[in-house]
């Protein structure tokens, strides 16, 4: 039984979290994601789940660590400056191999920046962000509906790989309203894929719930002896290799015959999609590659494209001064031209600007 509703991205993420079985939420107010916290302040108690307004982002992420250590699905949400504050906790979560979902509704930076939509936290999200050798799984929704779906996927992947997972949206996605199909029965959330995956999720034999009838458990990221820490890091790296191997996700549009490929994620990809259609109308063979998983970066899709076609040109579009473009260049590895066009601080590349960039270069 599906219900069609009109919801903001922020609210859709909140509703999806409730439906995905999020037991614990802690957050601290920050624009442009306040509707998400307010939505959960109302919905979580209705479902007898825990909602805490923390005294800071530091406290919020560490409260999530506590709930996650008990094996519960836990989530925190924030926007760029708040996510910077959470980085210490995220490093500990990654080190202690605790699953959780962290939502970043990005705004302009650096510093206090502004509250306009931006994509300038790509480096922070995909390259670790805190101290130590680690990655978070990073998913980037391009619509309100997809944000809803990726919350389910994000919680599942976090549990499957025992890793903190980041849902990376931007202020535009968080604030805009779109029709959303909400699934009211567990069997259709969102689709049968979810049900099948859920059944395969591992149990949590590490969860802290008191040592009654078993030996004590410890959740930690501290390994004093060098060889122990190196061994622990090798386990983490093995896990990351598996994720890289199995969890690359992207959307591909018109790529079979494209000679120019636009690469964009999230809200930026919506404009890139319109630009692609406009270029096709002008008989220019343009296509779109939209990464959905930012880490792991869908390098495999680039590999396939480059294998099939010798002469290709990539144009990477971002609401930043150029961050994802580095991963595109690594994936392409000199085999094709990679151009970049981006704007920051609330500036958003328009369809006209994209067309100009392509047609001007010709």
């Amino acid at each position: 039984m599906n219900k069609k509703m009109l919801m903001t991205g922020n609210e859709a993420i909140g509703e999806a979290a409730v439906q995905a079985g999020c037991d614990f939420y802690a957050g601290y107010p920050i624009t442009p994601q306040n509707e998400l916290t307010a939505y959960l302040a109302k919905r979580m108690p209705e479902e007898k789940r825990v909602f805490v307004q923390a005294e800071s982002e530091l406290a919020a992420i560490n409260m999530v660590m506590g709930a996650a250590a008990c094996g519960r699905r836990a989530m925190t949400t924030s926007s760029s400056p708040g996510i910077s504050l959470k980085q210490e906790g995220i490093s500990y979560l990654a080190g202690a191999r605790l699953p959780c979902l962290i939502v970043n509704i990005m705004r302009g930076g650096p510093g206090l920046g502004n509250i306009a939509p931006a994509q300038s936290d790509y480096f922070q999200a995909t390259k670790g962000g805190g101290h130590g050798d680690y990655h978070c799984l990073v998913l980037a929704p391009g619509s309100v509906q997809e944000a809803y779906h990726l919350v389910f996927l994000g919680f599942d992947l976090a549990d499957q790989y025992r890793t903190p997972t980041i849902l990376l949206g931007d202020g535009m996605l968080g604030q805009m309203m779109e029709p959303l199909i909400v699934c009211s029965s567990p069997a259709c959330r969102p689709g049968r894929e979810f049900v099948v995956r859920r059944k395969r999720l591992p149990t949590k034999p590490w969860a802290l719930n008191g040592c009654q009838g078993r030996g004590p458990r410890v959740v930690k990221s501290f390994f004093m002896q060098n060889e122990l820490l190196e061994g622990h890091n090798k386990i983490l790296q093995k896990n990351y290799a598996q994720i890289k191997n199995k969890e690359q996700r992207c959307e591909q549009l018109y790529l079979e015959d494209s000679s120019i490929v636009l690469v964009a994620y999230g809200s930026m990809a919506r404009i890139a999609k319109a630009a692609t259609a406009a270029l096709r109308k002008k008989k220019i063979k343009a296509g779109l590659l939209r990464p959905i998983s930012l880490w792991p970066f869908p390098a495999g899709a680039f590999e396939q494209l480059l294998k099939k076609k010798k002469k290709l040109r990539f144009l990477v579009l971002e609401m930043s001064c150029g961050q994802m473009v580095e991963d595109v260049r690594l994936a392409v590895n000199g085999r094709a031209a990679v151009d970049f066009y981006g704007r920051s601080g609330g500036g958003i590349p328009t369809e006209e600007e994209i067309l100009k960039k392509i047609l001007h270069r010709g």
Partner: protein
Amino acid sequence: MKKAFTRPKSLRDVETHYCPGCGHGVAQRLVCEVIDQLGIRGKTIAVCPVGCAVVAYDYWNFDCCEAAHGRALAVATGIKRVQPDKFVFTYQGDGDLAAIGTAETVHTANRGENLSTVFINNAIYGMTGGQMAPTTLLNQKTATTPLGRDAQREGYPLKVCELLSRLPGVAFLERVALDSAGGIIKAKRAIHQAFVNQLEKKGFSLVEILSPCPVCWGKSALQAQQWLKEEMVKTFPLGRYK
């Protein structure tokens, strides 16, 4: 013959890394004795701090969670809120609880979280080699106050029990000292009370334990105990604060 004195079941039979004359070993044993007496080992989850007690989970025989420096009470909040039927306590030093984690301490107490905290105040940073703590006494020499703590320069020793006593969410506050056999018995009684309060859902309880750190104080074990008894208690008066 009846065995009159044994190791608590909650305390593993291992050697600790604590320095000679340190109070941590005593305080951690007291915690274990109380947990055994209350019969709550099977439902206990402890949150260990960053500092000298960072590996308390190697000594304690119950579930433990690590926390980043200063964040023990936030982690404990997460644990307790999803498992209100479990017994959750934090064990924190002065740097952890009263410097880097002051916000977490004040706000967890102010929310009246149903948690218990064992706060070890030894007026110094032990693990990092004897730097000034928020609770370092005036004129006390440390690695970062080589001429002694000067109120004009470094401010005053932070009095946690006095500070928290004004908050309505706090159920119990007591300051005790590991300065003698009598002091140790009183400390155990206070820990017992703080733990029972949680079982009775009374809200936030904290026991501040003045504890010797002979190595970082530059004293012998005996001198350290003397200094604790004669000097430290002047700045940190013992007793029930709430």
